[in-house]
């Protein structure tokens, strides 16, 4: 069989390889845990089951599908995004290219590996799906199309990841790009954009425009398409563009669940095919030869000056001869700054502008979305800026330690008289400087928004809020930095380091408060004997002992709607706790770093 279809051999190698890894178990645990949680949360209460069986079953199925979808969306872009680029980085791609497997075969094998792995994970949670049969009222078609939707979304994300993996030459950009592509595939940006638009218009204008669109659909004959089930409408279109939302769309004459699922699946498959065609054509092209740097340094200041006359915007003259590293300084830090940080000034400046732009758009946007009228909305804007910054930080830092190893410089550096502490300290300081490129625009925008709101209200509170936001952001960034360093220490490749640092930062900054809230809810459950307030997540985050498990939740709580209670102490507590966590992580890295390599 392998003779006729050589790429089957590749699939087998890939899939076995993936399953043999230790992380396969972690992924399995993640998927099972998420699904179990979904079922637990969505399980109907005693009273509801009797008279709302169908509805309860429906929401349970939605929760199960959502957990499958979320785990796919978290795992698949990482796997697919590193699939081809990692072969390139390891120089094994050329050898694969030389075999009889055609580029499309390579692509097919990688895709089959990613999807096959996901499929196996999904099969593992199928028994959980059995709980659906305890509740009546689920149509088998809903169920089937629901699964089809989830799988086709994962399929399009995998294809998008593979496309990014073929387009980029380095692992981190490829993985980050494939997560961005994943977000695009879910259609959430479209919905978000529409929601913003809606909030800009008043209710009547908005209704007018959507009904105009709906009547257009009628004119085109689309509304009649699935005639028996109502027509093509604005809501239908939105739901099918955005699978995660369609899972929870209420059934209405306009939205028939199975048709929304089907339309969504078709859209995702079409997207996936498009991505695959692009990747195959990129793969079929001959790879670009690596760029070779060859300019010599210029010692003559006159020449350098004339260069500056032509182009006065050089931040640092790349061709100026660098000074000797002076005595008594940490040589490693100087190396990191001169050749690490300044070597990537251009890309860092891009990060700077990107961060500035995103913050400038995001912070006012969220503030406006939240009503722009009270403290809470300003605080939400500030929280958005935190989220943006924390989303970029791990990508910048996660390969800090692994890079020396992957480039083959680590042994030589360890052989010098530099102590492990100097090496780590150098990495850490340089990493912190990297993060400044993200933090400064965020802080500037925060202050700017706070100040402009203050002027509007003739009240200092918004400025105060942003002053509270700044330390919160700094502490979160410190946690993210420490988490990235930690992931970089334990990972064996850049891909794993990136994924690991997102996972660890995510757990510390998002997972921990969720766990705290969950534990709190459970403890009230055992106290009161029933799940009171389980459905109101808001309440779960209210108590100070839960707030203290997340700086940003505590920050939001300080300016929450329930005025009068100012939760400054939980906030201070959370800052102290998370600073401690970050410092503990960093100390751990410092201790383990030397040890890890001595063992071999």
């Amino acid at each position, binding site marked *: 069989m392998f003779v006729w279809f050589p790429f089957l051999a590749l699939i087998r190698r890939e899939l076995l390889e993936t399953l043999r890894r230790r992380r396969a178990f972690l992924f399995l645990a993640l998927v099972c845990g998420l699904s179990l949680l979904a079922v637990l949360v969505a399980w109907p209460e005693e009273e509801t089951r009797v008279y709302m069986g169908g509805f309860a079953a429906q929401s349970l199925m939605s929760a199960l599908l959502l957990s499958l979808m979320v785990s796919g969306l978290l795992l698949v872009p990482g796997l697919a995004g590193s699939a081809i680029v990692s072969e390139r980085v390891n120089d094994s791609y050329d050898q694969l290219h030389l075999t009889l497997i055609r580029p499309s075969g390579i692509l097919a094998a990688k895709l089959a590996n990613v999807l096959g792995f996901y499929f196996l994970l999904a099969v593992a949670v199928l028994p959980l799906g059995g709980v659906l049969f305890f509740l009546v009222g689920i149509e088998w078609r809903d169920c089937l199309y629901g699964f089809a939707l989830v799988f086709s979304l994962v399929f399009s994300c995998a294809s998008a990841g593979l496309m990014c993996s073929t387009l980029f030459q380095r692992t981190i950009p490829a993985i980050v790009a494939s997560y961005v592509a994943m977000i695009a595939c879910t259609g959430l940006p479209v919905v978000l954009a529409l929601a913003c638009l809606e909030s800009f218009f008043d209710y009547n204008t908005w209704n007018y425009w959507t009904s105009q669109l709906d009547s257009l659909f009628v004119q085109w004959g689309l509304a009649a398409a699935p005639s028996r089930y109502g027509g093509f409408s604005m809501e239908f279109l939105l739901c099918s563009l955005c699978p995660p939302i369609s899972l929870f769309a209420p059934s209405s004459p306009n939205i028939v669940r199975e048709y929304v699922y089907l339309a969504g699946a078709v859209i995702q498959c079409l997207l996936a095919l498009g991505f695959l065609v692009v990747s195959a054509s990129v793969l079929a092209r001959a790879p670009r030869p690596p760029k070779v740097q060859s300019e010599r340094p210029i010692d003559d200041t006159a020449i350098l000056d004339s260069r500056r006359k032509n182009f006065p915007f050089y931040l640092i003259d790349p061709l100026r001869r660098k000074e000797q590293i002076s005595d008594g300084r940490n040589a490693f830090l*100087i190396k990191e700054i001169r050749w690490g940080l300044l070597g990537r000034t251009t890309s860092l400046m891009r990060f700077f502008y990107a961060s500035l732009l995103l913050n400038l758009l995001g912070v006012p946007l969220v503030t406006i979305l939240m009503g722009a009228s009270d403290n809470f909305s300003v605080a939400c804007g500030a929280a958005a800026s935190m989220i943006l910054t924390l989303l970029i930080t791990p990508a910048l830092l996660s390969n800090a330690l692994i890079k020396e190893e992957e480039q083959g410089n680590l*042994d030589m550096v360890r052989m010098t008289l530099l102590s492990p502490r100097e090496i780590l300290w150098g990495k850490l300081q340089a990493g912190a400087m990297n993060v400044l490129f993200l933090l400064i625009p965020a802080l500037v925008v925060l202050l700017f928004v706070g100040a402009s709101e203050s002027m509007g209200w003739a009240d200092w509170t918004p400025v105060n809020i942003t002053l509270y936001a700044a330390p919160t952001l700094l502490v979160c960034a410190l946690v993210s930095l420490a988490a990235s360093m930690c992931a970089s220490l334990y990972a064996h490749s850049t891909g794993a380091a990136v994924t690991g640092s997102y996972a660890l930062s995510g757990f510390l900054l998002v997972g921990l408060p969720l766990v705290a809230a969950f534990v709190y809810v459970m403890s009230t459950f055992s106290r009161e004997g029933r799940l009171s307030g389980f459905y109101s997540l808001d309440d779960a985050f209210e108590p100070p002992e839960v707030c203290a498990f997340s700086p940003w939740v505590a920050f939001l709580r300080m300016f929450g709607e329930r005025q009068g209670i100012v939760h400054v102490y939980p906030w201070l507590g959370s800052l102290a706790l998370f600073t401690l966590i970050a410092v503990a992580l960093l100390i751990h890295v410092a201790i383990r770093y030397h040890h890890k390599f001595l063992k071999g």
Partner: protein
Amino acid sequence: MAMIETHDLKKVYNGFVALKGINLNIEAQDIYGFIGPNGAGKTTTIRILSTLLEPTGGQALVDGMDVMKSPYEIKKIVGYMPDSFGVYDGMRLREYLDFFGAAYKIPSKKRKSIIDDVLQLTDLTPRADDYVSAFSRGMKQRCCLAKTLIHDPKVLLLDEPASGLDPRARIEIRELLKTLRDMGKTILISSHILSELGDMCNKVAIIERGELLAAGGFREILAGVRQTREIRVEVLDGADEAATILANSPGIVNVDRSGNEFQMESTLGSAELTQLLRTLIERGVHVLFFSEEKGTLEDVFLSVTQGGL
């Protein structure tokens, strides 16, 4: 005094035994060849000696110091060149050497002249301002050697320094190593290519699957392996006379004649061999050539290892 000593050195990587008790003894100013097939444990041994790896058992001493107890002192006198290494992007050769010089805490005043010397020694002076990442493989190898020499180490641990080099670059490296030995350095050089070490090392150790099969001077190992010496004789005339003499000499066996040349094995000692030569000359044979065939490294290697290369 031994510069490098290991006693029953063991290394286990998560259950896989990579070194099963290695005993090495390397004198100062040796060029010591460390030979073995891929996966034999050469890199593991060298990394332990350079304090990068912790041994699982046994002891390793460099210049009398234990690698586990005084790694910092050992790093000062050891230059290590890994078998595979990378270079930093965007660094020029001089900057690269300056970084490593600073990392070895060489004062900046001295650093400049040391870098010039090292560049001179490795013939890299004309490339000092070029980017290291743009170098060819051979140039990178030399650049790494230059980095290894920057703190003037007494001991050089070179892990396959000539692998992947063209013949010319290989000869250049060999000449360089001889220069370094004359400068008084002790050199441990590993390789799986025998011809690379043949005429350079004064001692060798042969390692296979984590076990040391033989160690010591070339000739000694060969003598230990073979009970006989290979003798070659060439005569101008009187070949028949010579053939009779050789055939009747005790201790000479397996005479193989082709024209005026004889190839034979002998169990005789050196004194008896000179006696044999005298007999030949006294009997009127015009001896053109009388010599012992020195074994090559290949012979040693083939007779010591059990196959499974």
